[in-house]
């Protein structure tokens, strides 16, 4: 009895001492992970626009309607109060294009009659109802004519019978819409390929993203990528609830048509897409309420990589090869000397297999993904040749005006040019060992007809191609993004219809990929603007075109490099390198450029 009491007492004392020990603020802790650096920060700012005031002038009412488009309220009741009752249905804010202009100062109201007003502005961009963002050439004017009528003694607006959408200044646009990616998969392999859509920010973002993900593959990627979502699959309920960090996607019965591989792909696509919503941690799928499961996996999958799917990031490099005259040397491209650049000396040793020399007659060099092969075109741009180590592998002539060649990660060498028949053509060439005699073959791209190819760049995942083309006379330069249609063995067959990027640029000299969904292009907007590198995001426009919190859009542009001829990157947008006509190699330092070496080419694998 006594022993039991003693045991109970000591137990109680132990419990008390142990619980007493764990109070108060901890003095130290282990390192825990915080937020992802690219995680969107949910911005809770909501602007509530003002309704019409009594006795307001026609101009004030017209401008009031334009500004009421900023309303985060889904029904936009305030905006409707500016409209005459007959025009309420003509305000199609969700089904018409959104016009983006720079600031409210750019709005001009002009009276064209006793009850008619014209509102004009310089548009920066246009957003289609499908969520496609299209930048407009600088100085593009848009206007709308509004008729005003008295309703209850107050001026109210009658919209044109063609309807009216939203006009948003750039800060309101950034507040109301967000660029997000939907993902598709490569036909061979488990790579996720992003496609940008603009989604209305807010609570319905998960639903809008899921709906976008369920839609068909866009034209510019047709046959280049596939989707695991069977055609005609819809949301069974028109909402994707997020419950405790888990998004529940309830699909229509067509989803059951997916085979196991497609099902895994569908799941990976939806996870990667929905995880861009800040509140979503994991995703579970259901078909009309019945959970859809994959063998060997939990019902809620936390990330696409758990299913073996991932996007291919753009690689970074510690070293790059500089070519000056016929000499090739390796340098550390990030090493910027604090002083005059000519004092720099290469300390980076060459690697096995690096060719020591490339004769001066060969220009526009390219390095393969494994770094063991090089390609260059002849000085007259009519020949292509390859080097494996110091082994020279000439290619029989096949075209002229050849662009800088580029290797993709699958081992194909890409080059653009003009075929002997004078038509623009993109060729590909199988490379690697035992391909000494392989010949280039044309990749079908009928949309290039009537144009000439100035530059091309293959995306890190080798599914997309950025092509700079212009008319034969050099005008109308365009940057097109196109999906590469490949045979099951990976052989490129054709290029899908392009999706135009970087529309404001009137001249483009070179382009390169800097991230899975971002590129850098060397060009200018107009004659007065010097050539500079622009960083652009596929489907989201160029940096420095819209003011994103900056005082003026131009403030966030990179410094000009008027003599720049080619551009590449040693790692992301901050690793941009521009080579000039006078053989200066400039590396990005903030918004400006610092010379890191002298040479005519700077080579990194696959660029």
């Amino acid at each position, binding site marked *: 009895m006594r022993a039991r009491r003693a045991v109970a007492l000591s137990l109680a004392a132990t419990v008390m001492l142990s619980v007493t020990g764990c109070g*108060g603020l901890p003095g130290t802790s282990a*390192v825990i992970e915080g*937020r992802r*650096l690219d995680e969107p920060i949910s911005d809770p700012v909501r602007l509530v626009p003002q309704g019409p005031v009594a006795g307001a002038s026609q101009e004030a009412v017209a401008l009031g309607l334009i500004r009421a488009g900023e309303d985060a309220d889904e029904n936009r009741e305030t905006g409707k109060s500016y409209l005459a009752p007959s025009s309420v249905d003509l305000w199609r804010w969700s089904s018409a294009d959104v016009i983006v202009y720079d600031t409210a100062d750019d709005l001009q109201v002009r009276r064209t009659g006793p009850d008619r007003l014209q509102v004009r502005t310089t548009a920066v961009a246009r957003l289609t109802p499908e969520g496609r963002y299209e930048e407009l050439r600088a100085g593009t004017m848009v206007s709308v004519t509004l008729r005003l009528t008295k309703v209850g003694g107050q001026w109210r607006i009658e919209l044109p019978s063609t309807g009216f959408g939203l006009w948003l200044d750039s800060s309101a646009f950034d507040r109301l819409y967000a660029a997000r990616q939907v993902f598709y998969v490569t036909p061979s392999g488990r790579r996720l390929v992003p496609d940008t859509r603009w989604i209305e920010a807010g609570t319905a973002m998960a639903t809008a993203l899921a709906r976008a993900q369920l839609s068909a593959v866009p034209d510019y990627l047709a046959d280049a990528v596939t989707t695991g979502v069977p055609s005609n699959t819809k949301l069974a309920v028109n909402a994707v609830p997020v419950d405790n960090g888990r998004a529940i996607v309830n699909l229509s019965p067509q989803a059951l048509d997916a085979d196991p591989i497609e099902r895994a792909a569908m799941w990976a696509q939806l996870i990667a897409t929905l995880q861009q919503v800040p509140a979503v941690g994991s995703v579970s799928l259901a078909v009309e309420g019945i959970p859809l499961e994959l063998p060997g996996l939990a019902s809620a999958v936390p990330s696409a990589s758990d299913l073996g799917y991932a996007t291919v990031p753009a690689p970074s490099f510690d070293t790059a090869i500089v070519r000056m005259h016929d000499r090739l040397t390796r340098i550390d491209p990030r090493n910027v000397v604090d002083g005059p650049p000519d004092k720099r000396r290469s300390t980076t040793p060459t690697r096995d297999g690096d060719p020591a020399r490339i004769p001066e007659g060969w220009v526009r060099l390219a390095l393969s993904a494994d770094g063991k092969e090089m390609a260059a075109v002849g000085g007259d741009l009519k020949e292509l040749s390859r080097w494996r180590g110091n082994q020279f592998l000439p290619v029989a002539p096949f075209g002229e005006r050849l662009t800088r060649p580029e290797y993709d990660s699958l081992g194909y060498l890409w080059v653009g040019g003009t075929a002997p028949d004078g038509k623009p053509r993109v060729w590909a060439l199988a490379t690697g060992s035992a391909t000494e005699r392989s010949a280039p073959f044309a990749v079908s791209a009928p949309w290039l007809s009537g144009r000439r190819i100035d530059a091309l760049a293959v995306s890190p995942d080798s599914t997309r191609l950025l092509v700079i083309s212009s008319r034969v006379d050099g005008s109308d330069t365009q940057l097109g993004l196109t999906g590469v249609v490949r045979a099951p063995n990976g052989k490129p067959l054709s290029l899908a219809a392009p999706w135009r990027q970087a529309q404001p640029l009137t001249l483009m000299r070179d382009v390169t990929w800097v991230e899975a969904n971002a590129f850098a292009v060397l060009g200018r907007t107009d004659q007065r603007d010097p050539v500079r590198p622009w960083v652009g995001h596929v489907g989201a426009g160029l940096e420095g075109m819209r003011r994103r919190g900056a005082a003026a859009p131009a403030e966030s542009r990179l410094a000009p490099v008027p003599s720049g001829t080619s551009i590449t990157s040693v790692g992301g947008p901050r690793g941009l390198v521009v080579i000039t006509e006078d053989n200066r190699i400039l590396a990005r330092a903030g918004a400006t450029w610092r010379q890191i070496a002298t040479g005519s080419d700077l080579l990194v694998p696959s660029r």
Partner: protein
Amino acid sequence: MAARAVARGLAERAGSALRGGSRRLRHLWRASLAFRVVVVTMLLGLLVLSAVGTYLYGSIAQGLVDGRQKIAADDSLVLARDAQRQFDATDKTESVATLTQMATDLAKGYTQNARSERRYVVITRADSNSRPFVIPPVETSSVGLRYIPATLRQAVSTAPGRQHLQVATVTENGDEVSAVIVGQPIEIPVAGTYGIYFIYPMQREREIISLIGQTFLLGGAALIVLIGIIAFVVTRLVADPVRRAARVAERFADGHLGERMRAKGEDDLARLGNSFNAMATSIQQQIAQLENLSRVQQRFVSDVSHELRTPLTTIRMAGELIHDARSSFDPAVARSAELLRGELDRFESLLSDLLEISRFDAGAASLEVEATDLGACVDRVVASLAPLAERRGSTIAVREPPGLVVAEMDSRRIERILRNLVSNAIEHGDGRPIEVSLGSNDSAVAVTVRDHGVGLRPGEAALVFTRFWRADPARARTTGGTGLGLAISLEDARLHAGRLEAWGAPGEGSCFRLTLPRHAEGAIVSSPLPLNPLGAARSDHRLGPASPPRTSPPDPPPGGRAATVGSATAPAAAADRQP
């Protein structure tokens, strides 16, 4: 030396005070149910409150830290993005100095020094960055780089895709406080990867948690005291009636059969009271019935004895005549006449003993006390029984202390006791010597009568005073006394407020001790003589020197000093070692 002595004295006094206090506490613990209940309840309450309080305290602290970490993560993500944007857009990259200036300006801009919300910024090179273009560490206050844990710097350097958070202790204006530190990498043009760390001291959280702690402490103390008071009140509600019940039961046990408990209401205590009262009433009734029955029996015995006395007188007279004329009868009839007279003697003495005992039972016995020398009584008894002893071959030795052994007593009754004891000793002494010892002390006088006969078997000493008890039931009651002698002696001793006790061991003989108070109203503190003669030697020195025996029979054998004594005393039992 003096100081040391004083200190020692003080220490001793404190020690003794402590010992006294702990003794009092122990006594209180044993004696007071209320104290025990209050102490145990308060201790258990303290234990439970401590556990719950500590758990809550810990949870709240963790919640505060978690909240702070979340806010810090959001806040620092916005700031670090801004810093990155600024660095990406800067065109001042031409020298270390300009970039350092920019980093310092940014860090200063992000530093916040409001009293309750502080934020310090540190920009330092990532461990993985080996570029030759080095911006020295930038810190905006003394709360800076030295407080960034190496593990955090390592995490920022090795896992650049995320923020990393760690809690560490920083010293802010000489005051140690826990701080949330958020680190994440930023790319500085030309200089490469740096870590930007935001330090958020948790001053406000500390104030909150300390306020909560104080509230817990005060509230807990008040609650414990309240629990103690409640326990005390509840215990009193239960213990007081129990204590009253105990007092009533004690008085009932003391013979106050009319005592009853108060029983009000219908609760458990009332039921206990009612049950007790019912039991007491039942016991009282049964006792009354038994007393009544006993009285009837005693009356019957008394009446029978009285009624038998008259015919017995007549029979005796006739018997005497027949006995006197026995010489004229033929021998067989003459022998019958002798037997008749002997049995008439026994009958008569039995009748007188019965009458005596019935007087005791009826409470009719009375004492006529006067100061008497007990030695004289003894001498008279020994003298009167000397012939009998002689016939049995026993000698009687008397040991008396010098001087008179005077006590207030009824000498007739005392002599009757002594006669009974000595004659029993002669009868059971198997012809061996008999010792009679006297003793006295301040409160009492005593006589022991010791024989060396067969002795008593274990357990028999308690029975010898029982009426009509026989040591050997097989023996017919045709010889010896009436079987009431020792019972009457015991009653006589009790009448004097004295004690009559027996001791015996097989083969060692037996010893009877009569102890009487010196004064009729006095009480016996202790008996001057030992009951157990075998252990007597041990207490001889307390008796004082005994005079040599006044008679000249052989000296008594010494008691077995080393012998194991199988003794029994029956101070309250009544018996007669009968044959």
